[in-house]
């Protein structure tokens, strides 16, 4: 084993996908509005991202090639450029929201307006990427992000009727006055949150940063099988806490502070403090993930040297892209766009862009030229094909549903 916490890459990646600022609020909002009627989407999403990230991590370990490298190789420079532009746009929007999210977490702790925190947070994100080594970064933010588990404790302590909870989750039904299009809009948003392209950009590039080889395939599986289900669990916990405490009062969740109320009421000051630390670490981790992904995707498309495994001066263009992206995201964030709305849209766009990332990975994971004997098993391919259909349907339905429901209004 290379280090003590060998699965923190998977945990940090999953936190960035499942419980970044937009998802923290979206999960609670969905729980308060639909209770457990959308819990199945989280399960579908977890299985999908486990499948997807396992392939991406395996390809990276066996061939040393990260995801965007392969996208260009298999789709050619034109399609890959379209994917790059779309993915970069999603990354930038998400990064904007995450930097603001870190600031919102600090705002809740200090009652100082988040716009004052925002430049400080942006600088801190850049500084960590510039100075802290990759393994330290993923250990710190992966482990501290686990403070979010306090939400699961909240649900457990609240002592729900597990039987009826499971019944509501397995027999989803809608309240009167709720339309199906809005329901499916939220379903796609949750699915998009579980399976974001930036998660696999980050995860596979992280595997290269950590110098995984064929001998690390078990590390890959451990990361995937522990990290993503944990992310899904946090997502379900946020949903359940809101369903138990906020739904009976018909509260519409719009702010991070409302998300923290169930834990506050159940576990008191210690619970609240832990949760605020969790919010901070999770959004900070997601900011690192999206800022680095912006650099990874562009550098890999052009073949530039990237990564934190070399000195910054040896990956000059990569670090320039990361720095510029953080600056632009901070400027957009300061223009006081609603950061939570921004991630909700970026989730929908990441669902649209997903097939262009998923298909190349699925194909390369079957290419013996890269994989030798480590090509996909029949089971992976069967499941991979089912998800190919789900991903295509979600991608095609996303924009029409967003327009038809006025983004879930």
């Amino acid at each position, binding site marked *: 084993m290379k280090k003590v916490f060998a699965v923190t890459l998977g945990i940090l990646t999953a936190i960035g996908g499942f419980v970044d600022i937009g998802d923290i609020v979206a999960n609670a909002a969905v729980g308060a509005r639909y209770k457990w009627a959308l819990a199945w989407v989280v399960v579908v999403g977890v299985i999908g991202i486990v499948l997807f990230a396992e392939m991406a991590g395996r390809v990276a370990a066996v061939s040393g090639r990260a995801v965007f490298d392969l996208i260009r190789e*298999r789709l050619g420079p034109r399609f890959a450029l379209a994917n790059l532009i779309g993915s970069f746009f999603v990354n930038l929007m998400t990064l904007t929201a995450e930097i603001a999210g870190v600031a919102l977490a600090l705002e809740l702790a200090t009652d100082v307006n988040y716009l004052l925190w925002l430049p400080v947070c942006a600088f801190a994100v850049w500084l960590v990427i510039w100075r802290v080594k990759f393994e330290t970064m993923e250990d710190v933010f992966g482990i501290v992000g686990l403070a979010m588990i306090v939400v699961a404790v909240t649900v457990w302590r609240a002592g729900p009727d597990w039987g009826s909870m499971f019944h509501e989750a397995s027999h989803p039904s809608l309240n009167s006055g709720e339309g199906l299009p809005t329901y499916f809009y939220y379903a796609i948003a949750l699915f998009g949150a579980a399976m974001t392209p930036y998660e696999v950009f980050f995860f596979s590039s992280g595997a290269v940063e950590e110098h995984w080889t064929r001998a690390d395939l078990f590390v890959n599986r451990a990361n995937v099988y522990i990290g993503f289900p944990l992310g899904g669990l946090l997502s379900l916990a946020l949903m359940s806490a809101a369903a138990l405490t906020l739904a009976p009062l018909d509260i519409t969740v719009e702010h991070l502070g409302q998300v923290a109320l169930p834990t506050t009421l159940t576990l008191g000051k210690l619970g609240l403090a832990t949760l605020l630390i969790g919010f901070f670490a999770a959004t900070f981790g997601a900011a690192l993930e999206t800022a680095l992904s912006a650099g990874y995707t562009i550098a890999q498309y052009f073949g530039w040297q990237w990564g934190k495994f070399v000195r910054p001066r040896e990956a000059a263009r990569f670090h320039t892209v990361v720095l510029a992206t953080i600056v632009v995201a901070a400027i957009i964030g300061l223009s006081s766009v609603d950061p939570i709305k921004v991630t909700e849209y970026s989730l929908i766009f990441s669902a649209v862009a997903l097939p262009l990332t998923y298909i190349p990975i699925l194909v390369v994971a079957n290419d*013996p030229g890269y994989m030798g004997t480590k*090509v996909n098993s029949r089971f992976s391919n069967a499941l991979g094909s089912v998800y190919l259909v789900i991903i295509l349907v979600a991608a095609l339905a996303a924009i029409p549903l967003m327009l038809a429901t006025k983004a879930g209004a």
Partner: protein
Amino acid sequence: MRLSELLGKEVVDASGERAGHVHDVRIQQDGPVTSGFDAALRVHGLIIGRGGLANRLGYGRGTRGPWVIRAIVEGRHRPSFVPWHRISAIEGERIRISGSHDDLERVEP
């Protein structure tokens, strides 16, 4: 000339019949692998076929699964191989080959 100039060009046989588009250029590496590549990469011919997507994704030459994607991109036509000596001219967007396209060898999967 550049590889990208050859890719995608239409191939027609002596009787003017269309044989498909250039998917790839097959190169043979003659001689030892280790000691540099001193002019060892020779172009042996073109891989042509209908529908370019399968080629780009690597189907038909090693990659097999998953069958859904293979079934969609491969279609009914297997790519064929045009040995270089059968190319008689490259004219704009077209490549002329001698003889009939029916006797071209199919590329083994």
